[in-house]
């Protein structure tokens, strides 16, 4: 048998695949990236680009925080069109219950070295005068940021190509396994490792993995500079994003560098069509207006949808797939793929090259979820 053409073939040119390519070429691996459409054109282009530390679980915290520090390290070399701004996040507390959550979150973050400040009702009003009056307060997490994800993905891919990676664009993959990637036009290539970074479409290439499409909507307005100054997320967001069944909406609004306001968010399982769902969009905008009454005076110019890759335990799948030693997974990032892409790439590259990772990899290993399809593999 001849040696494989590539050390690593990455299927999917979203932010996760792009980051994996960027990292693997740094380790002197021969890399191919395969993208069926345009780089960063799927969930990457649809997302908000929030670089956010999350603490739903210790494992989620470790991955998001590690990845955020990687983004901060990368920041000086990012081109201007990536629009990376470290503007912080304000978690908005509507009532005393949510204020208790602010205190818990503040305690967790400060114990773990994440700078954060508790905001009183008056502090919140001073920082974000367009929020409705009478909110209980909030938590300002200082090192969070925003960026423009498709340009970030393109930059990472361009760096990889400059270091010798090969891009197969407009190439649809029909099957992967046993060291080969098969294209729908009948051709194929060989690679020692194949990374499935196909986001919500990953199960089509690796049947049996527990990834489901979770649809989201976003609306963007015309330019209203400083209408909001920080990404604003309701603390109730945690309740709605945790629900694994019902359709949900939450207040999650972000200022863009253009002066535009990006308005989210919605979550739907079982909605496979990309068309805008007017009812859920209406609920989402009503939720946003309940926090920012002045939004009703603004002009929305565009709405779009995207599909998050959701897993049952809300952690991504990063690492070898037990049923095929040549296949690695880098998917299941749900709403955090932009944030966690760089850490995902470090873990994948560490595993491929047999190096120790900066954080424990076990919580994200695909082997943690055993499904009937591969229980005996």
């Amino acid at each position, binding site marked *: 048998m001849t040696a494989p053409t590539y050390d690593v073939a990455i299927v999917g040119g979203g932010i996760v695949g792009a980051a994996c390519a960027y990292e693997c070429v740094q380790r002197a691996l021969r890399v191919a990236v395969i993208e069926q459409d345009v780089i960063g054109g799927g969930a990457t282009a649809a997302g908000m680009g929030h670089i956010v530390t999350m603490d739903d679980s210790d494992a989620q915290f470790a991955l998001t925080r590690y990845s955020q520090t990687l983004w901060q390290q990368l920041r000086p070399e990012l081109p201007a069109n990536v*629009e990376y701004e470290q503007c912080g996040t304000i978690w908005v507390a509507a009532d005393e219950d949510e204020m208790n959550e602010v205190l818990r979150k503040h305690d967790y973050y400060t114990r773990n070295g994440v700078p954060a400040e508790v905001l009183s009702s008056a502090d919140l009003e001073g920082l974000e005068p367009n929020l409705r009056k009478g909110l209980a307060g909030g938590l300002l997490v200082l090192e969070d940021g925003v960026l*423009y994800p498709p340009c970030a993905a393109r930059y990472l891919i361009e760096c990889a190509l400059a270091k010798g990676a090969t891009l197969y664009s407009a190439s649809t993959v029909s099957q992967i396994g046993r060291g080969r990637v098969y294209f729908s036009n009948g051709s194929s290539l060989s690679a020692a490792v194949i990374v499935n970074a196909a986001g919500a479409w990953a199960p089509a290439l690796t049947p049996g993995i527990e990834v489901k499409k979770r649809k989201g909507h976003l609306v963007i307005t015309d*330019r*209203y*500079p400083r209408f909001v100054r920080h990404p604003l997320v309701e603390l109730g967001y945690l309740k709605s994003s945790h629900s694994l069944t019902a359709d949900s909406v939450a207040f999650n609004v972000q200022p863009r*560098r*253009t*002066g*535009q306001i990006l308005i989210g968010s919605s979550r739907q399982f079982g909605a496979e069509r990309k068309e805008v769902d007017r009812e859920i969009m209406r609920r989402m905008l009503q939720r946003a207006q309940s926090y920012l009454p002045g939004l009703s*005076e603004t002009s929305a110019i565009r709405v779009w949808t995207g599909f998050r890759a959701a897993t049952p335990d809300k952690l991504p799948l990063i690492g070898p797939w037990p049923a095929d030693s040549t296949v690695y997974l880098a998917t299941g990032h749900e709403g955090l793929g932009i944030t966690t892409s760089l850490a995902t790439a470090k873990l994948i590259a560490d595993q491929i090259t047999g190096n120790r990772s900066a954080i424990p990899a076990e919580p994200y290993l695909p082997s943690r979820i055993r499904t009937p399809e591969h229980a005996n593999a």
Partner: protein
Amino acid sequence: MPEQVTLTVNGKPVVVPSGATVAAAMATAGAYCRDSVSGERRTILCAMGICFECRVEIEGKPHQRACQILCSPGMRVNTQPRIETGAESSR
């Protein structure tokens, strides 16, 4: 004689026939609609609410399409100044 409406464009009174659009008032006043982000003067183009080139400020509210709004007595319309955002691109 049609009924007439008096409004102000950039602080100066303008008289237009009742039923005229703000875009017509801007043209009557010899005013353009807005300065774009790249600093260009923009004014009415499609006249049917699609292109958003004719956005003006009405009663201090930005991004109002002049071609889609009728003049009313005493209405205050201004050329929309360039929006300072720190960025040229938009999505």
